[in-house]
């Protein structure tokens, strides 16, 4: 199997100028590789650095040291999202890498269906087809039909989460970063989401998964990385 991601000596320290330069160490000595097509679970207590690591890979956070090499299919080269030109990172995000945050970033006055259809349209799908696929996703996740054309700002936590995860899955990215995708869902809905994620894996999508839910982790992750105080605690293989 081909290597998708190669992380070496990654380190992240936040420097807070407004608190007189206070330094907050978040990650250090993080090294691992990911193979194409696998789902890598990130486990560890709250504050152990899981989301920080994910955000460094997506360039939402700028790492302090170390290297990340993502093997881009589009350019045929290895790109370090932390160092590459901003435009190259935007391209990477648009075509290959999708980040699904813990909470839906609500855009005012955009209906749920359009939120899910938007990344598909950006990647070249026709609007009607994208909306149709968004409807199928909502159907499977049992999102009440009367919410489909409503604005998610007033949705419950679980409803927003389904919109968020549907948007990420339906974009069918090559590499998907999932931060707590099932946290506010009941058992049946959770299983529906897990099935959809597994189908995406069947299609070849590689994923990194943060979850505190043992059921979700055991059904999805091929192997797990345990983080503790910003370091990899043990290279445990599931």
């Amino acid at each position: 199997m081909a290597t998708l991601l190669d992380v070496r000596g990654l380190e992240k320290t936040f420097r807070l100028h407004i608190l007189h330069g206070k330094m907050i160490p978040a990650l250090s000595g993080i090294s691992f590789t990911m193979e194409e097509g696998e789902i890598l679970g990130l486990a560890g207590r709250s504050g152990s650095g899981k989301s920080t690591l994910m955000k460094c890979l997506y360039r939402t956070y700028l790492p302090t040291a170390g290297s990340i090499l993502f093997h881009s299919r589009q350019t045929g080269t290895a790109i370090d999202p932390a160092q590459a030109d901003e435009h190259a990172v935007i391209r990477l995000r648009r075509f290959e890498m999708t980040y699904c945050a813990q909470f839906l970033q609500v855009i005012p006055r955009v209906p749920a269906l359009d939120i899910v259809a938007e990344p598909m349209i950006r990647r070249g799908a026709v609007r009607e087809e994208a909306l149709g696929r968004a409807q199928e996703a909502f159907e499977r996740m049992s999102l009440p039909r009367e919410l489909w054309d409503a604005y998610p700002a007033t949705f419950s936590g679980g409803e927003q989460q389904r919109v968020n995860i549907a948007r990420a899955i339906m974009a069918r990215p090559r590499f998907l970063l999932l931060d707590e995708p099932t946290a506010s869902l009941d058992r049946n809905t959770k299983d529906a989401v897990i099935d959809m994620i597994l189908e995406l894996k069947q299609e070849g999508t590689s994923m990194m998964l943060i979850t505190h839910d043992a059921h979700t982790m055991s059904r999805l992750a091929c192997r797990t990385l345990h983080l503790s105080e910003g370091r990899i605690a043990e290279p445990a293989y599931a």
Partner: protein
Amino acid sequence: MTPPDNSNGWLLRVRGLTRIYGEPDERSVARTGPRAATNICPETGAIVACADIGFDLYPGEVLGVVGESGSGKSTLVQLLYFDQGASAGEVYFKPIEEGAKNLLALTSQRKRYVRNHLFGMVYQNPRDGLNFSFSAGGNIAEKLIMAGQFHVGKMRDRARGLLSQTEAPAQRMDSTPRTFSGGMQQRVQISKAIANHPPLLFLDEVTSGLDVSVQAKVLDMIRHIQTELGISMIVVSHDLGVIRMLTDRTIVLKHGRIVEAGLTDQILQDPQHAYTQLLVSSLL
């Protein structure tokens, strides 16, 4: 719709853009800026509104410009739109001689051509962008005429199409924008700015002073324009919420200098510069 093609490089390239009011000499740039914590030169009294601003804007990209009042945000877009002259710097734009010609060195006639045909501008105050003695439709026609279109029927069709997106009732097309609400005026101003599909649109604090529901409608309209027409935009705002919603990349200005530049989510979630950290931590 195809995604904007970034592979051919930049659309707009800005280098060393500087605007000084008063005696422009070396001291005024050296003695001002974020380190000096002022943009007024202590020796000459010159005001350095912008100094050494540089960035590339790619096709279809939306660039945010943030900073507090007096940081040089509006000056920057006014220089690019030729509303005022620069003291120094270079601006290259792909549609003009394949990006080989410095726009700041064009004759005033060619600058007018670039403004009318290739740029769109939306000001904070609708009175700056709209002519209140014309009707809403007439304002759009004015922009089309300046861009060399003279067919009255086509102009009316275009105006009607654009205004229908602003939720303005069709029968108000012949009323002056003076009789419109603030949010409506702003959407008419946007319609006018994009009437001839310019590849680059400047938006200067366009939602400041509007109440939130109206602000959402204006932002919605801008987002539609961006996704459907793929117009590149430079969005000036002191409102980080607006920046987060609209932009891909952001530059942060303080005392007329860029203190930080990056992807918008990185600027908002992992700001590096002390000033940006202060700005982000002040967010409601």
